């Protein structure tokens, strides 16, 4: 069993870094460097918020990319459910994307808390946007916990796919909560729907580069994490095969 799993691991290790991941990684580094320089030194401070506005260059992109991650999880889950062969690659992308999404959503809440302390005067308020965002985070932590419950790979994929397709419905609730209810959180500045972007030009440019940077980081992390999950699944399958073989041998010995 040991030799079988190590052979499998070596095969996967050779495939971890590819030209695509290197390109995406390089794009992430360049755009993130732009965001750091632009966010800290090039863009102006805000007339009301002062330098606190610079937190926006992390807060907003991480929120958008967390939404993207959970949507990718839902799409990959739907692909797994709908595909005839139930290719496990879809399930691994779903799991990897949810993991990265949870990290980004936690970053959103953390940076939002710091921003809120400086501008609102409080780290946290039980307002609709903050509460629904916290609930979304807890939902996806639950999704990851369900993935770790055990059972076969197919069982894991099926139950987590169903949860992913339900959980993604929370995203419109989070995004539109500031329009549906009165909220301490401000309304959207860029995705406001009326086409009027209420933001200084260099601030908007840095914000959009931040979105590209965090999206590339997300893609890079998901590609690598999916491959690591593939290795874990291969090890789990080989262990299962070995256990079945041992059991078969025992049964044969008894006869």
């Amino acid at each position, binding site marked *: 069993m040991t030799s079988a799993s190590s052979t499998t691991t070596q095969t996967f290790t050779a495939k971890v870094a590819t030209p695509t991941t290197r390109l995406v990684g390089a794009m992430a580094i360049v755009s993130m460097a732009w965001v750091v320089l632009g966010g800290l030194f090039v863009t102006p401070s805000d007339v009301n918020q002062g330098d606190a506005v610079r937190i926006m260059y992390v807060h907003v992109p991480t929120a958008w990319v967390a939404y993207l991650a959970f949507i990718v999880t839902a799409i990959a889950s739907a692909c797994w459910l709908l595909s005839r062969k139930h290719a496990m690659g879809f399930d691994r992308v779903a799991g990897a994307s949810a993991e990265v999404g949870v990290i980004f959503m936690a970053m959103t809440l953390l940076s939002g808390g710091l921003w809120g302390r400086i501008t609102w005067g409080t780290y946290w308020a039980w307002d*609709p946007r903050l509460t629904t965002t916290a609930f979304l985070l807890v939902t996806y932590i639950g999704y990851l916990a369900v993935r770790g419950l055990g059972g076969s790979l197919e069982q894991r994929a099926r139950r987590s796919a169903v949860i992913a397709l339900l959980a993604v419905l929370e995203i419109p609730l989070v995004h539109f909560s500031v329009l549906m209810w009165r909220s301490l959180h401000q309304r959207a500045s860029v995705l406001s729907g009326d086409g009027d972007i209420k933001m200084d030009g260099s601030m908007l440019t840095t914000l959009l580069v931040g979105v590209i940077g965090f999206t590339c980081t997300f893609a890079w992390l998901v590609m690598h994490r999916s491959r690591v999950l593939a290795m874990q699944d291969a090890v789990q399958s080989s262990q299962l095969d070995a256990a079945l073989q041992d059991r078969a041998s025992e049964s044969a010995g008894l006869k």
Partner: protein
Amino acid sequence: MAVLVTIVLAGGTIVTKFLTSAIDYYCNVDEIGLRAGCEAGRRIRVQGTVEKNSLTAVNNSTNFVLIFNEKTIRVVYEGDPGGIFQECIPVVAQGRLVGDVFEATRIEVKHSNAYVADNADRLTKAEAQECSPQAG
């Protein structure tokens, strides 16, 4: 299983806190005593703009007038509200109306969704800083 139970409890706590905070986070100044949930005698959150030239600090007390839809209310808060609290900015004050004074125990600043450069031209900057009693 313990992890799942913890997560379910966390989700339940969030929903409970949200519902007890009321789905609408605040009442506007002109709704006090008129709208359900905004009764004068109960603990409420009130939203309005800090009226220009109304802000005073006496000892440790911050006094100001909140305005919304031309309706005003005097607010007293013990301490420094913090954040970017200033005149002409929308805030949410949490507390209770005692007589004709709103005794606030918590002040939250509600900044707008407009981001204007501090070095913008004077007209743009003035527009961003002007009092907007309809905020919210």
